[in-house]
């Protein structure tokens, strides 16, 4: 399929899907170039309990208690 054939369909897309198409194509091109784009609309959950120091101390105590018993 050529670009000329695709264009009418692309023009007919709603605005949000046009933006999505732009992002997907940009990511494709970047990937081919060995680069990487991070799509801005995606969610990137960060689950790391990076500051659970109390919790870590509790687990250490549990391990030590179990070792001692």
């Amino acid at each position, binding site marked *: 399929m050529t670009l000329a054939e695709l264009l009418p369909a692309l023009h007919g897309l709603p605005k949000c899907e046009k933006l999505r198409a732009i992002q997907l194509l940009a990511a494709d091109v970047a*990937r081919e170039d060995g680069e990487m*784009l*991070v799509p801005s609309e995606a969610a990137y959950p960060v*689950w*790391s*309990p*990076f500051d659970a120091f*109390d919790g870590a101390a509790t*687990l250490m105590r549990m*391990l030590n208690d179990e070792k001692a018993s």
Partner: protein
Amino acid sequence: MPKRFPYVEADPMLGPASALPYAPITLHLGDRSAHVSGLIDSGSTLNVLPFDVGIQLGAVWDEQSVPVRLGGNIVETEARGLVLFGQLEGFSPVRLAFAWSRSNRIPVILGQTNFFLEFDVRLCRSQMFFEIAPRSSLGS
């Protein structure tokens, strides 16, 4: 000898942007076991276990008496301490203490306490692999 694992792309649409170091690990509690993918997370202060994995291992929530305070995105999630054995293929099982969470919205997280105390980890994200070895056996 370290064991090498590939990064796992969690979302095919995002490809390498979604690549994370998930290690296959078997968790044991008594005579029950569960084979899971654990996220190797150096940014986590502790190991975290989703609720259903604990249930699969036969753990009983009401019998776990030690509350564990979580942090980060899951700071509001209730958790209790649970000590298991964890075994990576080819290595001896080790005791791993988990914050057993009430939530299933999180993966198994292998964090600083105490996964990183038992294993040395080398992350080679640019080459899409990571290596794990029993503590003190990676080059010093």
